[in-house]
């Protein structure tokens, strides 16, 4: 399939542990987004990568959250010292480029912090 893929699909972790979530965007898409979806809260923007530009990190909720995108393709969202309030579905989306508008979303990673 040529869609956005995310792994793992589910992750259960203990409070205080670090987790890494992976996103493989559609090949050739230069823009990549991370969102957090909590029940009844809609989608919360976390971070945005566009090509080689500096990422827009304005949505990251705390310094425990970080993300990188290697080689302009795969992205990893890292949450350090997880807290119970981090439990949510983390969605990744990619977009073809600056003159396109549609985002293509992955199936998400459901994170549960116990």
């Amino acid at each position, binding site marked *: 399939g040529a869609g*956005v893929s995310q792994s793992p699909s589910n992750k259960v972790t203990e409070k205080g542990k670090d987790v890494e979530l992976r996103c493989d965007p559609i090949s050739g898409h230069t*823009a990549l*987004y991370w*969102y957090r979806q909590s029940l*009844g*809260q*809609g*989608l919360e*923007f976390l*971070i*945005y990568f*566009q090509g080689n530009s500096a990422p*827009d990190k*304005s*949505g990251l909720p705390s310094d425990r959250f970080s993300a990188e995108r290697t080689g302009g393709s795969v992205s990893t969202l890292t949450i350090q010292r997880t807290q119970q309030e981090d439990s949510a579905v983390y*969605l990744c*989306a990619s*977009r073809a480029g*600056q003159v396109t*508008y*549609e*985002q*293509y*979303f*992955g*199936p*998400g990673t459901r994170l549960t912090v116990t």
Partner: protein
Amino acid sequence: AQSVAQPEDQVNVAEGNPLTVKCTYSVSGNPYLFWYVQYPNRGLQFLLKYITGDNLVKGSYGFEAEFNKSQTSFHLKKPSALVSDSALYFCAVRPSSSDSWGKFQFGAGTQVVVTP
């Protein structure tokens, strides 16, 4: 600051009846408006967008939406709902003048339930 409101948590409609999902927005300048749908255990799928031009835009699966600048609304509509339209619908906005393409604001979502 931009914002999106979807005033209904859930919309219930009988199959074959018209479906409307409401969305209002607040943004500086002209908006770019979007609708996405999320089926159970799947990622969001793009339905349609308004960027400029005709206020009535048509999208996937028979859906359409009307941009109303005076009411700052972008309601999603379908003339005849199907059971398979049951899903979670999200409205999103981005100001056209934004320097960063990251500044999409999504609504909280509206659950649509279509009964046979």
